[in-house]
């Protein structure tokens, strides 16, 4: 069992790299969605607020796998109609888009909570000192917001990482798919899935250490004495 796993281990590490790329890309895109969505849902016009709330509510109620299928199969059909010839959506594209759309909804909630938690007085004080809106946001509000959002962001990163395994079902060759192929080729499913689980747990554990380290660094006033 261990010999077979050792033989395919380089392939699995390659898959792990794809997993990390998909997860990191989705987190980044999700954050971009949330950076627009969170302020829009708080301060935007009523119509925009309802739109963002609808998006958040819809995604939170739908299974991730369904969203992935919808974007993978639906994307191919929609783009083919749009361009007039056959366009295939790749597993990577579908995976990143689907995971970002899902993560974006949760991240909107996280950033919205963090934004509300920064006292209004901070904004007023920054403006009273003559900072323009953009610098006031970037240099006064944003740093305080990020500290409050960090636990939620760290959690969401772990959720995206684990959800990325679902993209293997639409054929993306990440860690889970590599394990599946190796398990099929060698008839040793147990060893390969245990190895995959161990790799995921390893990444989760390392991430957790980094996140708590970042929290301690960014919020010295909250360190336990």
């Amino acid at each position: 069992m261990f010999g077979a796993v050792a033989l395919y281990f380089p392939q699995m590490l390659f898959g792990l790299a794809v997993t990390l790329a998909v997860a990191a890309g989705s987190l980044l895109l999700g954050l971009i969605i949330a950076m627009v969505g969170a302020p829009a849902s708080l301060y935007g016009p009523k119509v925009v607020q309802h739109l963002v709330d609808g998006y958040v509510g819809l995604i939170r109620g739908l299974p991730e796998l369904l969203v992935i299928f919808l974007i993978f199969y639906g994307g191919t059909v929609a783009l083919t109609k749009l361009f007039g010839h056959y366009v295939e959506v790749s597993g990577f594209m579908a995976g990143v888009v689907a995971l970002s759309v899902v993560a974006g909804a949760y991240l909107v909630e996280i950033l919205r909570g963090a934004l509300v938690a920064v006292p209004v007085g901070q904004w007023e004080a920054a403006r009273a000192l003559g900072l323009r809106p953009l610098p006031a946001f970037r240099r006064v509000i944003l740093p305080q917001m990020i500290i409050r959002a960090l636990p939620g962001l760290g959690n969401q990163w772990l959720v995206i990482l684990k959800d990325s395994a679902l993209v293997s079902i639409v054929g993306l060759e990440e860690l889970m798919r590599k394990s599946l192929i190796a398990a099929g080729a060698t008839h040793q499913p147990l060893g390969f899935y245990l190895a995959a689980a161990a790799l995921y747990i390893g990444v989760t554990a390392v991430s957790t250490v980094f996140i708590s380290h970042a929290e301690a660094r960014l919020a010295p006033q909250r360190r336990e004495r």
Partner: protein
Amino acid sequence: MNTDLFLQAARAVFSGLWLTLVVTLAAYVIGQVFALPLALARTSGRRWLNAPALTFTFVMRGSPLLVQLFIIYYGLGQIEAVRSSLIWPLLRSPLGCAILAVGLNSAAYTAELVAGAILHVPKGQWEAAKALGIRAPVTLARIILPQAYRAILPALGNEMILVMKGSTLASTVTVMEMTGAARVFVARTYAPFEAFAVAGLIYLLLGAMFGFGFRRVERCVAIPGK
């Protein structure tokens, strides 16, 4: 989009509704049943109880549900001792594996919830019960746990929706619940929007129903006037 295709899609998706409900409800019950002893082990001061429970929740929460399902469905059958054991009939059936995987995964998350809630009940409750001469097991069952569970009821309702979402993975081991049925329909007709829209709508409705049910329970067990 034409209505005829919609009706066909709805019929296909509805054929999977039953399995979605079976997996969701059975896995939720398994999750709740396993969560309590795990939570008690997690809150116990004894290392030999705490360490295994902590390891279990860490492993289950640190790896994807899909991997856990594949380990149970494809992996365990490789071990001779498992194939000759009493639980083999359960592990041989894809439905049994799906329920077990989603259930154990949910148990790990629920155990952390329950453990947190138990620790959150004020220490004075334990002390008062002890002063009244109530034995520790009775205190736990009649005084601590009711308060802990009342506090996390909204989260337990949320967990049910998460279990419902997890039940979609059953389609990867040939259990054709709603998402799986919708995917088969899409592969046959190449009309992705109809089937997935119907499935999505039913998931939203089910989620709303679970939420409604749990809010009813919350109101029933709430302390009057609070």
